[in-house]
């Protein structure tokens, strides 16, 4: 279990993390979401004791990271897959890491096999593809058979097969009762991976709870309806619901599908489709973080026409502080 | 439009691309999928004339890349966002590119504005985050206002807002009649972005079709049905020789489309509470189709092999 309470971290005048309180439970995959610059990496570093908070605490199974004896046996983390010496082999990298925490070499072989890198264990990391570096990072995180695992963008560079593999791995780790804390920008992937969510924006908590509740908050509700008896259905629904046309179908909002089905039946309208539209994590996330994004999405709403190219809407500009790092 | 015919590339003993033929139409976003090591990057590089094919050819609007005069005005590409000198400013990077193809200097500021990098244009590109480098790469691709755009993993490093922006942006480019060819591993993203797919494995074409066809070819299409008269409906459907599974809350019907199920329900005076066609995911389809044959099952093994060979 990871527990952060009123965690605050300032770098100069910018407050990267601001009174952040959240819990990542054991036995669950907790997704950690937020726009770029929201303070996710800082939070990860605070959890691992790499940075010191200005105030507040973060505990791992009740203990601050720096007080853990043999921390790799409690917490495994993969923050950046490229944090290692490129000239060393994957196996050598894991060996020295294992030695720091008195982990036997046998375990090195186990984790290499787990991530499928046994055959290239003696090859220098320099030669690894991004996906293989990612796998090595995961192997390193697994080394101490830890109860708590932190991953930052674990699917980066993995191909679809690798993505399915890591999703299953994370699920099985959580099923073992471990705490799995994963940060990612790939929301459709997170939607399939995480059961709980911690969402931050500008260093502050903006949501903590289950994935299902989060997605249910989206205003992207409605029911998609197709019928050969358009006029009858329209008449039956008028006054009770709003509907918009969507390429040969209607999207009805304001009534649930059970009710629409009954009304259609009463009106004698045959249904060809009656599908409740489920909100996406992406939509829910964008709704929630829109105001919390450092540079508000104003630029997105007002398209910037670019004379000789496409009148494409602009993304929100990058702040110079982002480069300063 | 991009057309590859019999495209082949051999590096030593390895056949990276093997007799690959496909075409990418204008006015659509075409996704380019395949496991790691399938030959996607090699193909992209051959399209851009960076690697010479061992056999076959690839043309853009009927011309080979080498025969394009001022090619950046015809083809814009983002292959790797890190292909920028780290000590050069974003603006200087775009300026030299613009100069090389007689693109007016004012265009540099336009594309910087489009991708939202104006405020950091004078900063060294080496200090950029991956997301910012990605935007710079997109700006570079747009520089010549090209008809054909190639992107390799464009959402890499972008946050959700950036990902959404890219998706809408690609749709816009395609709507303007441009040819947009995007390679990515993020299948859930590609399902939302691409209307056509070129799928390769081990350097060979596995499939070229619309995204819809690709998904429906692999995943079995079913319809989820809920009704207060579930038992009656089940009987009615089974009489019409549909295959019905499911529990006491909902039926899962296969072998019959939702229109037909709706008609049967109406004819039998059955109230429906839900009638949702279930489509498979692109990921399922991709795994099934590329994983079907061991021959195409490249992924990690092929990569490992490649690494071991190059380490020798």
């Amino acid at each position, binding site marked *: 279990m990871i527990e952060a309470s009123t965690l605050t971290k300032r770098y100069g005048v910018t407050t990267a993390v601001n009174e952040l309180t959240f819990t990542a439970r054991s036995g669950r995959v907790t997704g950690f979401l937020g726009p770029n610059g929201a303070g996710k990496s800082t939070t990860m570093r605070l959890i691992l004791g790499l940075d010191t908070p200005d105030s507040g605490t973060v505990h791992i199974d009740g203990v601050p990271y720096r007080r853990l004896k043999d921390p790799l046996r409690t917490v495994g983390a993969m923050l950046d897959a490229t944090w290692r010496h490129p000239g060393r082999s994957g196996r050598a990298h894991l060996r020295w890491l294992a030695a720091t925490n008195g982990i036997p070499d046998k375990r090195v072989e186990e984790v290499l096999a787990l991530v499928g890198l046994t055959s290239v264990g003696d090859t220098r990391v320099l030669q690894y593809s991004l996906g293989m570096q990612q796998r090595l990072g995961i192997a390193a995180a697994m080394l101490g058979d830890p109860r708590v695992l932190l991953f930052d963008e674990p699917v980066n560079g993995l191909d679809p097969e690798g993505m399915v593999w890591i999703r299953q791995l994370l699920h099985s780790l959580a099923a073992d009762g471990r705490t799995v804390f994963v940060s990612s920008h790939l929301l459709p992937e997170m939607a399939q991976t995480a059961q709980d969510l911690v969402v931050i924006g500008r260093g502050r908590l903006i949501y903590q709870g289950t994935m299902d509740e989060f997605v249910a908050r989206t205003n992207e509700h409605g029911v998609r309806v197709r019928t050969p008896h358009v006029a009858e259905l329209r008449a039956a629904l008028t006054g009770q619901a709003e509907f918009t046309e969507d390429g040969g179908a209607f999207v009805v909002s304001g009534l649930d599908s059970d009710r629409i089905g009954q009304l259609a039946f009463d009106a004698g309208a045959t249904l060809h489709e009656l599908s409740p539209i489920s909100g996406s994590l992406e939509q829910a996330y964008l709704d929630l973080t829109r105001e919390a994004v450092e540079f508000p999405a104003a630029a997105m709403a007002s398209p910037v026409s670019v004379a000789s190219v496409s009148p494409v809407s602009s993304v929100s500009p990058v702040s110079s502080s982002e480069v300063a790092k | 439009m991009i057309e590859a015919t019999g495209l082949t590339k051999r590096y030593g003993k390895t056949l990276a691309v093997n007799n690959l033929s496909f075409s990418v139409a204008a006015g659509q976003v075409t996704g380019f999928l395949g496991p790691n090591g399938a030959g996607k990057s090699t193909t992209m*590089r051959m399209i851009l004339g960076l690697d010479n094919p061992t056999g076959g050819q690839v043309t853009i609007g009927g011309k080979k890349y080498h025969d394009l005069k001022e*090619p*950046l005005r015809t083809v814009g590409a983002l292959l790797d966002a890190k292909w*920028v000198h780290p000590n*050069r400013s974003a603006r200087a990077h775009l300026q*030299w*590119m613009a*100069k*090389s193809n007689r693109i007016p200097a004012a265009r540099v500021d336009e594309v910087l504005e489009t991708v939202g990098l104006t405020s950091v244009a004078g900063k060294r590109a080496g200090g950029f985050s991956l997301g910012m480098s990605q935007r710079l790469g997109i700006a570079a691709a747009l520089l010549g206002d090209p008809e054909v755009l190639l992107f390799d993993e464009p959402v890499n490093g972008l946050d959700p807002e950036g990902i959404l922006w890219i998706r809408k942006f690609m749709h816009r480019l395609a709507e303007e009649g441009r040819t947009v060819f995007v390679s990515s591993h993020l299948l859930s993203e590609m399902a939302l972005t691409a209307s056509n797919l070129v799928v390769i494995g081990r350097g060979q074409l596995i499939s070229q079709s619309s995204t819809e066809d690709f998904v429906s070819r692999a995943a079995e299409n079913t319809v989820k049905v809920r009704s207060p008269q579930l038992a009656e409906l089940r009987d009615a459907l089974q009489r019409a020789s549909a295959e019905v599974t499911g529990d006491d809350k909902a039926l899962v019907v296969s072998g019959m489309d939702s229109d037909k199920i709706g008609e049967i329900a109406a004819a039998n005076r059955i109230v429906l509470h839900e009638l949702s066609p279930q489509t498979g995911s692109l990921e399922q389809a991709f795994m099934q189709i590329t994983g079907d044959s061991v021959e195409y099952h490249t992924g990690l093994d092929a990569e490992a092999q490649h690494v071991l060979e190059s380490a020798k």
Partner: protein
Amino acid sequence: MNLLAVERIKLFSTRSPWWCALITLALTIGFAAIIAGASPADQPINVSATQFGGSQFGIAVVMVLAALAVTTEYRFNTIRTTFQAVPHRSPALVAKAVVVALAALVIGEIAAFGALGLGMLMRPNDGLGLHTTQDWLNVAGMGPVFAISAVLAVALGILIRHSAGAIALLLIYYLAVEELVQLIPKIGHTIHEWLPFNVANKFLRGSAVGGGDGPPPSDAPLSPGWALAYFAGIAIVFLLVALGVAKKRDA
């Protein structure tokens, strides 16, 4: 012309060329100052002595600059963007060689005249000045020699692609190999007579034995004019080979 502008933007939008240029100037002019300051007042120094730093070390640094101009493109993969923009490749690479050579020319002239000027300031009684054709060649010729050396380095950079490798090869060749060749019995001296930097030296200093403070004279048999042409010819041959290789190679 466009491609020259392209390469100009590229060259001057990063910092290393500026540093290399500064180091070249510092070495050339600095050595002139050291020699002018260290020689006893009763032993006049000559023009060749003021050019010692430039002809010995300035060239080396300029070649590093030139090699880096190419190898960093490979290192950071901007070469691919370049070839994407100019798929025929050779014009882009020639433009690079020209721009780098022009930069080297300018650096060479500033360095050479700066060194001479400083020498004249520090040793007003030595009669330093551009009195003879040889004096002129020795000073004003530094620019062309820098430029041609830069072209050689660009060609080597294209062939080798790795910064460390290209620079090591250039420096080892320049600083050691030409001299060591003389140790080969019988033919060593004959070969040495035709090695490019030795020939370039001939152009700069002729065969006249200098005042003792300058670098050793060249034993190349060519006249100064032909020496320059020979040196340039070698650079061009190298560049053509490099262009041919770059054109065929996968980027």
